[in-house]
């Protein structure tokens, strides 16, 4: 049975698209058939992070408006056999999406045998974010360890519990996962950032992953590679752990402490 997962946050720029790309790649790498959809109409950038921006011919809006088939619009990833991207339109505005249109596309993906459908939500709590979360079975709530991001995520959790199909039909609620990203143990220790425990206590939901702050993320997105595929990086390992937890495995949290400096680094004050 297919699962629809929304990546959402309320606040902008916290790392939703980075997360969508890496989680989708991580699940697909395990042989599951995955589609990742960009709901950020007018500001598409999932395709950039996935490195397929030059192969976008048709997009999500074209499919909804009947200007292309879903098959024509799905972009097959060049690295992972079972991974597909549905890009957002750069030229339309968000009003081009409709609840019925989104439902039709999701139904077709499910009928096509996709195991996971990842919906990359735009920031905010307006229409685009509403449509991205509406059909979700699960939600990855992406949070940065600072007050305004946590507050917005609380808001989003409220919407997940009330403004989704599951809530409206009184079905079992959307499963909520907390993903803390841009986590800097050093700044947490210095009291400049909230700790995992602080955030967990305020939001009261289970943590699916803690992703460290790292320049590797920018490097990966410039290269058009989901950062999880950069085997050298802590960020990759942290996302891989999150994927494992999402699929039901029990993996301890790591990267919560500042990395111990090696002998040479210490000697040369690096």
């Amino acid at each position, binding site marked *: 049975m297919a699962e629809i997962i929304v990546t959402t946050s309320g606040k902008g720029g916290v790392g939703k698209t980075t997360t969508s790309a890496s989680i989708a790649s991580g699940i697909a790498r395990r042989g599951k058939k995955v589609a990742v959809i960009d709901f950020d109409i007018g500001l598409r950038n999932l395709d950039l992070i996935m490195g397929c921006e030059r192969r976008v011919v048709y997009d999500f809006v074209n499919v909804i408006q009947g200007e292309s088939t879903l098959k024509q619009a799905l972009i097959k990833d060049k690295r992972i056999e079972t991974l597909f991207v549905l890009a957002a339109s750069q030229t339309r505005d968000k009003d081009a999406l409709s609840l019925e249109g989104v439902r039709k596309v999701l139904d077709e993906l499910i009928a096509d045998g996709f195991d996971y459908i990842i919906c990359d939500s735009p920031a905010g*709590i307006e229409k685009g974010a509403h449509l991205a979360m509406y059909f979700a079975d699960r939600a990855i709530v992406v949070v940065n360890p600072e007050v305004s991001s946590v*507050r917005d995520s*609380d*808001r989003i*959790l*409220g919407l997940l519990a009330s403004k989704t199909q599951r809530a409206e039909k009184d079905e079992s609620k959307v499963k909520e996962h907390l993903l803390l990203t841009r986590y800097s143990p050093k700044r947490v220790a210095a009291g400049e950032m909230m700790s995992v425990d602080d955030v967990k206590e305020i939001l*009261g939901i289970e943590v699916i992953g803690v992703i460290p702050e790292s320049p590797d993320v920018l490097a990966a997105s410039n290269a058009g590679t989901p950062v999880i595929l950069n085997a050298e990086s802590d960020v990759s390992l942290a996302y891989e752990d999150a994927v494992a937890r999402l699929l039901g495995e029990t993996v301890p949290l790591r990267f919560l402490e500042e990395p111990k400096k090696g002998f040479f680094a210490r000697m040369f004050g690096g």
Partner: protein
Amino acid sequence: MTKAAPAAREPPFVIRFGPVGLAQMRVQTMDAAAVHAEVMARIASAPQLFERTAVCLDLGELEMVPTARDVRALLDAIKRAGMLPVALARGNEIVDGLARELDLPVVAQVRAVSKQSAEMQPKAEAPAAVPKAAALLDADSQGAVAQLHHQPVRSGQRVYARNRDLIVTTTVGAGAEVMADGCVHVYGALRGRALAGARGEITARVFCQEFNAELVSIAGVFRVFETIPAELVGKPVQAWLSGEDLHFARLGS
């Protein structure tokens, strides 16, 4: 210097938010003649209670959306019969629109403070009026069990228990609002706003397991917490109203 300037620098007015005695009239029909006749009958049966009483008109039970013109006709009929409609009861955006068109405020707190209304109750000379008055003011409050809420109340959400207590078994987030006509109980952290006695019940209280509230209000008397006093922060706390003042104290100590 003109003489008009008073010696003491008294401001021209003092402003205060507090409970106001307002009867709530929940209309079931827009038939102005029928409402007029009923208001006359109520006043005849209990003039002390109903004559020139300030009334808040609640349109929430109507089956059809009325026009501003119909509402104005209804307001006139009520006024002619001897009560004084002064506001519309909070409803949806339609009510907001009507209120604007009619130049009336929209109010959420519409019930008289219990003590005052008790004093206002007619004595033995009009025995029939008491049950009637109770029926008008308190239609669905008889024996009401507290309203239970088991989900966290998240930022931007609002939970309101009408005519009863509210019990939240988990947390109330910053930017969330919990409100009851009775008491508010939060068996978790209270980080948002809690309003007890929302319609003027001065004996209502707020209880919480972990105090971090942004605002606490009882019967319209409120206090905003920019910073939480050290002796209360994170502690089990109750708040109550004594006279004009809100009091806060740790529970179980």
